[in-house]
């Protein structure tokens, strides 16, 4: 029996249970138990279970967290599994990086909503890229929230907030606890991720929703949709898992086999990351989900994978909040985020690398 700690609640939680049942149908050796372990930037239940030696066999993480969690020894190293040989030739390409089971495609923005708040951090990434900015300089090994175009994007966000009287003047309430506020019909445009969009389409079939690529801002960005980015979730095998081999089989099935990726799409509902998944063709021709296909294929950005990802993310969230609420200028806010993050990165590398 494999145990999977899942961060998802609501409909997605049910989806994962159905996915586990599908896996149990295609083979008879392994059962999967889905345990709810909520978390996004922090997941105390999961981390404590790993630190305490009672790790589950599988758990979710975002690609953003992977470098730091890898450095801390939270995950089982999959290198030897990879070398054991994938089951199809195409899997070789996919397995050369980390395992990304799930990716979200979305018309205007591709990102991850693990629960219902998009947050100031994701907003900055979205518009920062839409303006042509970058958040990480690989040559200098530096975070770059103070990149000119990122700052311009933040300035635009601040101007917009001011024009409606301030962010605290906004009051758009979701119709219920499950639906994204866009479903209230009171927001004109919104970058939505697949599950939110699907829920709204299902809950409000009469609502007329158009779609398009993410707006962009020249000269930094070159065309519409330039800002689209991947978020999504992956699966990892925690250190100390009791059944790593069986867990690996499940990861392979769900992320890189035609049946597994199709089962995941039908139960949980995130577009799979495997480029050769046949279910992607279905997505392309689906009347509701079709727009996501284009972005899936062409999106270029992903949040930088650095060892202090969670901290960087937190800093951006805090400093964007400061700027939007008029407590700091955008440039000052981003400079603070950079300083603090670089300091934290040096501390972390010194003590853990």
């Amino acid at each position: 029996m494999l145990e999977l700690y899942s961060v998802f609640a609501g409909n997605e939680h049910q989806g994962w249970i159905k996915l586990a049942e599908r896996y149990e149908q295609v083979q008879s050796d392994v059962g999967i138990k889905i345990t709810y372990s909520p978390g996004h930037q922090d997941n105390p239940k999961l981390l404590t279970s790993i630190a305490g030696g009672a790790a589950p066999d599988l758990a979710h993480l975002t690609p953003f967290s992977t470098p730091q969690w890898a450095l801390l020894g939270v995950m089982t190293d999959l290198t030897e599994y990879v070398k054991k040989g994938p089951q199809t030739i195409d899997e070789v390409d996919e397995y050369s990086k980390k395992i990304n089971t799930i990716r979200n495609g979305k018309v205007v923005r591709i990102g991850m909503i693990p629960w219902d708040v998009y947050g100031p951090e994701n907003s900055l990434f979205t518009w920062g890229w839409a303006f042509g900015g970058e958040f990480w300089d690989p040559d200098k090994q530096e975070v770059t929230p103070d990149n000119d175009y990122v700052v311009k994007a933040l300035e635009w966000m601040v101007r917009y907030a001011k024009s409606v009287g301030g962010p605290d003047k906004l009051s758009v309430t979701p119709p219920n606890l499950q639906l994204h506020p866009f479903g209230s019909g009171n927001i004109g445009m919104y970058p939505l991720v697949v599950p939110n969009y699907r829920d709204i389409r299902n809950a409000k079939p009469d609502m007329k929703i158009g779609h398009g690529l993410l707006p962009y801002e020249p000269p930094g960005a070159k065309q519409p949709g330039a800002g689209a980015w991947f978020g999504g979730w992956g699966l990892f095998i925690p250190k100390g898992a009791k059944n790593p081999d069986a867990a690996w089989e499940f990861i392979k099935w769900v992320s890189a086999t035609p049946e597994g990726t199709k089962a995941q799409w039908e139960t949980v509902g995130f577009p799979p990351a495997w480029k050769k998944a046949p279910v992607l063709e279905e997505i392309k021709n689906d009347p509701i989900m079709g727009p996501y296909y284009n972005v899936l294929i062409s999106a270029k950005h992903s949040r930088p994978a650095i060892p202090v990802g969670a901290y960087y993310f937190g800093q951006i969230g805090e400093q964007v909040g400061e700027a939007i609420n008029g407590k700091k200028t955008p440039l000052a806010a981003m400079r603070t985020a950079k300083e603090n993050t670089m300091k934290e990165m040096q501390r972390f590398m010194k003590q853990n690398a």
Partner: protein
Amino acid sequence: MAAISMRGRRANARARRDFLWGLFFTSPAIIGLLWFTAYPLLASFYYSFTSYSLFGGAKWIGLQNYRDLMSDDNWWVSLYNTVYILVGSIPLGIITALVLALLLNMKVRGMAIYRTLFYLPSIVPAVASAVVWAYVFNPQYGILNNILRIFGINGPGWLASPTWAKPALIIMSVWGAGNLMIILLAGLQDVPQEIYDAAKVDGAGWWASFWNVTLPFLSPHLFYALVTGLIAGFQYFTPAYVLTGGNGGPARSTLIAALYLYQNAFRYFKMGYASAMAWILFLIILVITLLTFRTLSRRIYYGGA
């Protein structure tokens, strides 16, 4: 002589046997205390002098965590936020509980029902009540802004506003006044009726009677409320966490000390740093509690039955 010493020795043996049996029966509690309280306490003290990510060994760095805390802007912001909420919610909570207790002390019909109703909110699980309060504070549909609208006031964004988020949390804390209300009610019922009668004979009106009779008799309970309120206030966590998704927003306005501690422990993998915060908070609570006792205990009147 010999008979007495024989009796003495038998008494000693019995006393020791009784002691051992006592130890045996209390051992579950002692083991629990050592394992779940003493050990984590001492461990966190140790970790506060290390750099510890939760995975892999802790590296000794001496007082570095404490030094870093002193220059950490977020730490000072979090202390300010914590004290702000404390200073608002403790008086408000005590006054609310007192008023409710005074009302409930009147011999009116259906009092048991009212007592239950007022007490119920304090036993609703913290997370569930935070979710309910999020709706109360909703700028568009929430009850609070609806009521304000009746008086022609355009309510603020509450939890979405850096200025009003803390006041919102303070208002929300009144929800738990039921606990203290019951304690104060018990205290009120302990005040001897003769003293009230004597005061009336002396010509005391309601307020004079309240100030000179009721309050002194209630002073131990109010003192208890103050001390426990202070201790709990520095540990305030759940409502702020649930209502901001653990982010302390907007713009760090609800970043309280316990929340910043939590972020460092479970998001940034800085267990040592978080442990140092915990011990600084402990010291603060200790000093404030001692000060409170030093200054106020002389004025407490222990005349109750």
